[in-house]
């Protein structure tokens, strides 16, 4: 195929038309997917919240409270059944993970007792640190039903009450760090 001669004018016009057409197409697709993307995002959040706090009837995503700590943000989602507060889901993080930051969703009952913990995001070593996930080992079960007021959130090696994952002390410490941060913010946050 013969190459088309390049002049200033036809290069300008071509690039203009190409970018115009592609931005129009993108604008259309963006409008089209805006709704489904928002729905998928909030469904994902709600699923994690559902897992860690007792049955609720409100929309915790709408009443979220943000707390900034250590250059990152924690999110507190109050779960209410009618007007009664049944628990608070705290999206927390730690930068002490072995493979990078870890994000957890920690569910507290109104008196501060840990109800359940779900791992949202982590990059720990498969087979070792990733045992903090509920599906992989019983590590996270030992936190359930404990109140951090009388359950020291650090591994036994550091004088705490938590049984670390074998061969993954760093991941276990990071996990405790994230839960402790969630508890501190929950106490100060004062959602009652």
């Amino acid at each position, binding site marked *: *195929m013969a*190459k*088309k*001669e*390049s*002049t200033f004018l*036809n*290069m300008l016009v*071509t*690039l203009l038309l*190409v*970018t115009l057409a*592609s931005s129009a*197409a*993108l604008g259309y*697709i*963006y409008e089209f*997917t805006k709704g*489904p*993307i928002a729905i*998928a*995002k909030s*469904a*994902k959040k709600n*699923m*994690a919240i559902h*897992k860690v706090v007792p049955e609720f009837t409100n929309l915790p995503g709408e009443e979220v409270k943000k707390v900034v700590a250590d250059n990152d943000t924690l999110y507190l989602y109050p779960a209410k059944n009618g007007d009664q507060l049944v628990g608070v889901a705290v999206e927390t993080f730690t930068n002490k993970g072995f493979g990078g930051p870890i994000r957890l969703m920690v569910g507290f009952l109104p008196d501060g007792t840990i109800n359940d913990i*779900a*791992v949202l*995001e982590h990059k720990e*070593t*498969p*087979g070792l640190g990733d045992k903090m*996930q*509920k*599906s992989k080992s019983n590590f996270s079960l030992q936190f359930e039903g404990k109140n951090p007021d009388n359950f020291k959130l650090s591994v036994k090696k550091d004088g705490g009450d938590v049984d670390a994952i074998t061969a993954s002390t760093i991941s276990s410490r990071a996990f405790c760090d994230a839960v402790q941060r969630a508890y501190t913010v929950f106490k100060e946050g004062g959602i009652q």
Partner: protein
Amino acid sequence: MSNLKNFAKGFVKENPVFVLFLGLCPTLGTTSSALNGLGMGLATTFVLAMSNLVISLVASVIPDKVRIPSFIVIIASFVTIVDLLMSAYTNTPGPNGEPSLYDQLGIFIPLIVVNCIVLGRAEAFASKNSVFSSLLDGLGMGLGFAFALTLLGSVREILGSGSVFGFKFIQGDGILMFVSPPGAFLALGFLIMLMNKWKQKIV
């Protein structure tokens, strides 16, 4: 070249991963399981087929000097479309809280735009051939890429987690190294070796 040959060359003879060694970054990065490999492969197939189609349509009216920028804009648009569609429809986490396909593929979806196969096929094939054969070429190359990624993902998942497409058939952990990056290199190396051996036999 016949249409069938044109379509089929992407699978074995000119397979982007095993023969041309193009797009190895997403290949190594996303194939920790068969499903991830397939998802990434199909996303790339869509971009390849659509960009080949559009580029072969407009190639004759684009001046030679602005050829590459125009191609990049077209490719980037399709990648963004895939990214938006996937974040809308493949973003539901699994029943046990496994991250969604969109979360697992993460940064590699926007990075399809710099995958050398896409611009490579646009330059080497779509800008010189008819619309229909460009579409076939894009589909064949894309499906060949998806085939390679699914194969590599399956091998790594079978060896590393004792499951395939999420169905577990060995209890407990597998050879965990195959799920992590060094395993990707090893598995790919052995697959290429087997592929070359097999190709020598049939020729």
